[in-house]
Structure formats: structure tokens, C-alpha cells
């Protein structure tokens, strides 16, 4: 058994010397200086808290901040890229122009074969909606799709009624000014919203008048057709309708 000499006594500990020449601080079990003792309880100073942990905490919060920044940026970027509204431009070639919230074009695709041909090789990226429409019309003119007396139809598709209302006016104005000196065309701007409105009033009123006059009925039903998703295909072909609504819209 190891022997220790008690060298120094304090209130809470004693200093002892072992036989190998180690000085130790041990529990002072009523020792006195000079005493030889065998069983000592050595002082153990607790390890200081690992610094690592602190760094890790810090890294965690940094990572969290970084992750949220990345997420925020991603969301913002995606929102920029997100299609907010679509404009169907029909001359004879028909194309769909997708724009984001700021009217920057984020997508362009041909609806029919001519449409694909028209936009082939055209770079729409980061261009403004008006500019893209202008350039598309320009190209259509060059390729002979657009000429004096032809019709241009713009169908606006968006969830926001405000957007549709404001763009109906703005696009009409813009195209009117842009094409004024170049070519004479009929411009029709239509939208889903315009079609939905007539459906809103009570059916009963309409119902009465409908039953009276079956011929008139047909024209009324045009409206309800617009409500369908198939609107694009079927209604554009309907020349009666086009002339009616086109005149109305442009006046707005």
C-alpha cells in the first residue's frame, strides 16, 4: 500500500508527498503535518467544459441562419421564376407567353406548329412582356403571318382579376400605339374574367328570357362556354363571338 507523508494541512485539503516524489492535494481527513497516511482521496479538479461544445452551438446557429437565407433566396428566386399569368397570343401562329409578377417573361411556347416556328431561336429570357410581344409581332410580320387586315387575339389568363383588368387596358394601348404606323389590324383582348361576369347574376332572370327566345339562347350560351377550360380551342373559332367581345374590350 502506498504511503504518503502529510506536508501541509488546510481547511479543505492537505498536501501529501508519495514515495515516488509526487505532491498531491488530498481530502484532509483530520490529518496533521508529518503524519504518514495510506489511503488518500485525491482532489479532482473538474475538467473545464469542452470548448468544442460552444463552437458547435455557434456553428448550429450559423448553419440555421445560412439555411434560412438560402431558403429565402430560393423562394424569392422561384417566385421570380413562377408563372403569375399567361398570355395567349394568336395571329395565326399561336403562342403562350408566361410572365411572373413583374411582367418579366419566364416562359414561351408555341401552341400550334406555326407558333413553334415563330418562336424558334427567339430568346425571351428576362425580357419585358411588352417587348416580347412587340418582337413577336415584328417577327410575325417578317415571316408573313401578320399583314394588313389580319386579326390579333390576346387571351389573358391569370388568377388575379386586378392583373387582367390593368393589362387589358395597358396591352391594348401599347399594341395600338406600337402597330399604329406599321400595319392595320384588329386587336382583340379577352380574358376568363370577362366571361365569368355574365354568369354571376341569378340564373332565374336569365332563365325566363332564355326560355322565351330560343335563338337568343344560343348567343347567351357562348358565355358559359368561355367558362370552360376548353375555351381556347372552341371559342377562337367562333367568329361571331370574336367580333362582339373584341369590340367591347378594346373600348374598355
Amino acid at each position: 500500500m502506498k504511503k504518503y507523508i502529510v506536508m501541509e494541512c488546510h481547511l479543505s485539503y492537505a498536501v501529501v508527498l508519495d514515495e515516488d516524489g509526487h505532491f498531491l492535494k488530498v481530502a484532509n481527513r483530520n490529518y496533521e503535518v508529518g503524519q504518514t497516511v495510506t489511503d488518500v482521496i485525491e482532489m479532482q479538479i473538474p475538467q473545464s467544459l469542452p470548448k468544442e461544445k460552444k463552437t458547435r452551438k455557434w456553428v448550429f446557429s450559423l448553419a440555421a441562419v445560412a439555411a434560412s437565407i438560402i431558403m429565402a433566396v430560393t423562394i424569392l428566386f422561384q417566385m421570380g421564376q413562377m408563372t403569375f399569368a399567361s398570355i395567349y397570343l394568336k395571329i395565326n401562329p399561336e403562342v403562350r407567353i408566361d410572365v411572373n409578377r413583374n411582367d418579366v417573361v419566364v416562359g414561351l411556347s408555341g401552341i400550334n406548329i406555326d407558333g413553334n416556328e415563330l418562336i424558334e431561336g427567339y430568346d425571351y429570357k428576362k425580357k419585358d412582356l411588352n417587348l416580347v410581344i412587340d418582337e413577336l409581332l415584328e417577327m410575325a410580320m417578317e415571316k408573313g403571318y401578320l399583314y394588313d387586315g389580319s386579326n390579333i387575339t390576346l387571351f389573358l389568363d391569370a388568377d388575379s382579376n386586378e392583373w387582367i383588368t390593368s393589362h387589358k387596358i395597358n396591352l391594348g394601348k401599347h399594341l395600338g400605339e406600337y402597330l399604329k404606323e406599321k400595319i392595320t389590324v384588329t386587336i382583340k383582348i379577352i380574358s376568363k374574367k370577362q366571361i365569368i361576369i355574365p354568369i354571376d347574376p341569378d340564373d332565374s332572370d336569365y332563365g325566363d328570357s332564355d326560355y322565351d327566345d330560343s335563338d337568343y339562347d344560343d348567343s347567351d350560351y357562348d358565355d358559359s362556354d368561355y367558362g370552360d377550360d376548353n375555351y381556347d380551342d372552341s371559342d377562337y373559332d367562333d367568329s361571331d363571338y370574336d367580333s362582339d367581345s373584341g369590340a367591347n374590350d378594346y373600348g374598355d
Partner: protein
Amino acid sequence: MRSEHQIVMSVYEAKDDMQKADDLIRDYIPFIRSEASKCISRFCTEQDDEFSIAMIAFHEAILGYEHDRGAFLSYAATLIRNRIIDFQRKEGRHQGVISLNEEIGDDEQTLMDKIADQRDYIKESADLEATRQEIEELSAVMADFGVSFSDVADNSPKQNRTFETCAAAIRYAVENQHLLDKMLKTKKLPLRQLVAGSGAERKTLERHRKYILVMLLIQTNGYEIIRGHLRHALKTKGGMSV
């Protein structure tokens, strides 16, 4: 809140100042005793080992406390509890041996043991007196160098390799007595010669300057009992040097 702040400040002051540590511990003896009593489920007297352990545990708490560890007193209480539980576990392991010794007290054989013990005790008390004188002398000389045993305990090399390095330096000095004489005269550790003689790194020796100093002082005249206690160590040192 305010008192908590106060005690944390005293704890931080007591870390480096032994006097303040003692004062703080003395102020909290009732707390320490009550924590120890809780652990052994009876009143803890100052004669109990548990009390001594609780005292040193409180001291450990002072030295080991950091702001991150929460409130000081609850930290200290935990430490006291842990140390006492550790101790009781360790004692439990030796319980058979101890109880055997105590039970013998009723037998005839035990009387023999008791007598033997007594004789040992008388011899021991004489030894004790002599030893104490030696230590007091040594302590006085150390005071001239501005070193206390507590400093030395803190300065004692913990790692085996460091310990061996220091031992080599001490051995070299013992073999060259003039170094010891010079040290006593100049009150300075002849560090350069030790480095040159033992081939140890200066940084290592410098770090354990106080320890080496005391070990060398012990090798000077007049500390036969302590040297005798260290005989074992010297032998291994001698064996290693050859």
C-alpha cells in the same frame, strides 16, 4: 439573484487566491455539512470522512466552476454528492477487510494486535514529531524561495513522461552536489546547468520549476526522514540512470 451574483464573484476570486478560497469555504461549512448529512442520511460530524470529502469537493467546485455550469451552490451540491457516493462505493469494496479488523477487537488475538498497534503508535508519534520538525524546516526554507507546498502540488508533473524528465534533472543535480550548494547560496534554481546536464527541454523544467526546486531542497542536508520516505523513488531513479 443578487446573492447568487455575489457568490459567483467570490468563487471567481477564490480560484486564484487561497486565502479567499479558505474564507469562502469557512463561510459555507454549514452548507457543506448539510449536503454531506443528506448523503449519509444522518448528521455529519467533522470527524466523518464524508465531511472531509464534502470539504474537498466544495473546493473542487470552486476551482472547477464556470458560468456555464449554472448556479454555483447547486453545482457544488452535485459535486459533493458525487464525491461522497464515489467514496462510499470505494469503501464498500474494502468493507470486508475493515470489518474483519474491527471484529477482531473482541477476541484475544485482537488484544495482541492492539498492543502491537499501540507500540506502533508510540513509535509513530515520536516519528511524527521528528517528521513535523523536518517539514517545518523545509517549509521555512521554501518560504525563502517564495514557494508553498500547495504551489508545489499544483506544479507537480502529472504526466509520466514529464515526471521522468523532471526526475532526470533532479538526479543530475543530486550527482553534482555543487549545484545544490549554489542553489542555496543564490536562492535560484540553476536551470541552465540542469538543462545542459540532463538533456531535458528547458520549457518542461521551467514549467515545473517549483517542483524541481523543492525536490532539490529535499536532497540538501537535514531531511533524512523525507529522503527515507522517497528512498524508493531515488532507487528507481538511480536504477534508471545507470
